[in-house]
């Protein structure tokens, strides 16, 4: 923000720099979105003519429908599981014995920083042993390993600022231990829960590397996009990308515009 003492030159340089950063981040996406509206049969920028041709193509394609359906189904199963397990883990880390708490926290959020290719390889080995690869029984837990840390972080941040005497107050007024969490704690930490759920959904919906290891015939949306790209670069890929982008950006917007979510969960400032 500009104040009365900041130099005008410095402020202008900062403005230019900020614009450059934003352009660098947005431009590739913007070009892709523009290309997706081409009426030609090849990708070019700027497109010579515009139309909805490739969106129609994508939405009518059985392959794209099936893969998007699988991704949605997977994300819809993963999100509630991730929220439930991650919330319980966050409670345990917040309320459990202090001894070893930091180590346990580091261990539980480590999938965020571990190379996904290594995780994928490990999970693939186990899935092979158990003969469950290429099934939902493998996909769901695989996605959970990478979504749960996000719930632990968002819910954990909400719990950090939660005053436990409110739970005690509820208990002294006749609520059971579970009742006090259900009626008091969960509604108060709701912003953290919502943030965790949205993160889980987006991450599961976008996940590629680990799913790639596990899938043989199944095609999630990212896998379908990848295999399409392997054979040909058609404008349909730009249309799919734009649609995926719209879903992800929409959910992120919900996260951002619920002001409280950003502030209280402490994830996005």
């Amino acid at each position, binding site marked *: 923000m500009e104040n009365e003492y900041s130099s005008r030159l410095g402020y202008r340089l900062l403005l230019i720099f900020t614009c450059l950063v934003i352009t660098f981040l947005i431009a590739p996406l913007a070009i892709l979105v523009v290309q997706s509206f081409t009426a030609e049969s090849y990708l070019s920028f700027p497109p010579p003519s515009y139309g909805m041709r490739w969106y129609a193509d994508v939405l009518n394609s059985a392959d794209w429908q099936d893969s998007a359906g699988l991704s949605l189904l997977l994300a819809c199963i993963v999100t509630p599981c991730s929220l439930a397990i991650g919330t319980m883990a966050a409670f345990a880390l917040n309320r459990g014995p202090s001894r070893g708490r930091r180590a346990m926290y580091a261990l539980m959020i480590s999938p965020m920083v571990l190379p996904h290719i290594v995780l994928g390889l490990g999970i693939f080995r186990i899935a092979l042993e158990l003969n469950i690869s290429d099934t939902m029984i493998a996909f769901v837990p695989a996605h959970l390993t990478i979504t749960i840390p996000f719930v632990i972080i968002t819910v954990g941040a909400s719990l950090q600022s939660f005053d436990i005497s409110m739970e*005690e*107050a509820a208990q002294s007024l006749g609520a059971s231990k579970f009742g006090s969490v259900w009626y008091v704690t969960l509604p108060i930490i709701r912003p953290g829960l919502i943030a965790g759920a949205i993160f889980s959904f987006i991450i599961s919906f976008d996940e590629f590397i680990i799913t790639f290891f596990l899938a043989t015939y199944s095609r999630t949306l990212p896998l379908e996009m990848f295999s399409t790209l392997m054979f040909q670069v058609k404008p349909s890929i730009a249309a799919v990308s734009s649609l995926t982008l719209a879903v992800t950006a929409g959910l992120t917007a919900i996260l951002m515009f619920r002001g409280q979510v950003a502030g209280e969960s402490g994830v996005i400032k």
Partner: protein
Amino acid sequence: MSDVEIQSAVKKYGRFTAVDSLDLTVSGGEFVTLLGPSGCGKTTTLRMVGGFVRPTSGRIRISDEDVTDKPPQKRKVGFVFQNYALFPHMDVARNVGFGLRMANRERSEREKRVAEILSMVRLGHLSDRMPSQLSGGQQQRVALARALIIQPSVLLLDEPFGALDKQLRDHMRVELRELQRSLGISTLFVTHDQDEALSMSDRIVVMSEGKAAQLGSPSEIYERPNSKFVAEFMGHSNIFDCLVEDVSKDGASISLNGVGFFTNSPSARKGSRMTAMIRPENIEFADSGEKRGDATVAATVAGMEYLGSTVQVTLSLEAGISLVARQTNTESATGSKLRTGQNVAVRIPPEAVRLL
């Protein structure tokens, strides 16, 4: 029939003993205060009664029923927390009605009783406000109403005035005490503030290092502290080690570093070293020329502190003894006319000197 009975309660955290073999009974609408410095175990004791802390040994009984192993929700205690712990996502009416909702009472009954209790604490007009829209005093009344609506056997108050400014605190203290009296509900109150304890309590338990240092009425605790700790904690400033020189049937003469005083305190034993306490408000200034017998002592005014309704005078006696006297600040009082450096004669009546 007692409302709360604490029987040799002990709470240990590892090697640290927070509460050490405490016994206390509260009954018949009594207002009992647990008073002590931080870390003396007063809050731990209250939390043991509330069911949030499980005693290491000993029993807790509420309404003649052993609740030691029962969780808070089975105890019927009204707990008011230091920060009120109002539920921020519920309006005033839902906060207050929470206990009835947990007891599965009919909506119509809940609404009726919430309205009743809110009018009792004079908050009927604010029932649809959220806690964040209320002032500190209003929040406290909501917390009180919420605790009282379940008709608890005992009211537990954990430093409920800590967050209020002084004027409001004085007001709320009177209001709370009136409400408590009219309901006739036995109350256990925790505070570190002596004034609060003295003005509100029927009985006070002064706690130190997990033990009850003294148990008694406010006047007993203030006027006849049984130990140096209690005397110091109750704000007595003149505490000295002394030697009991002689004991007669009327009292005893004692010596502080060679300066002699006379006391009618009954506990004197000849030849023993004891702790003497001289209450600042009982020290009198003898007008020059007036003859008041051998009880007067020569002193020099070392400092004056103006406190509004009183003036605190620091006196320097021979043998390096420093004594604090407190005078009511009236036109005629000698204390208010004193000047630093002035030589004065002070009279210390035998009843003002107490041996601990």
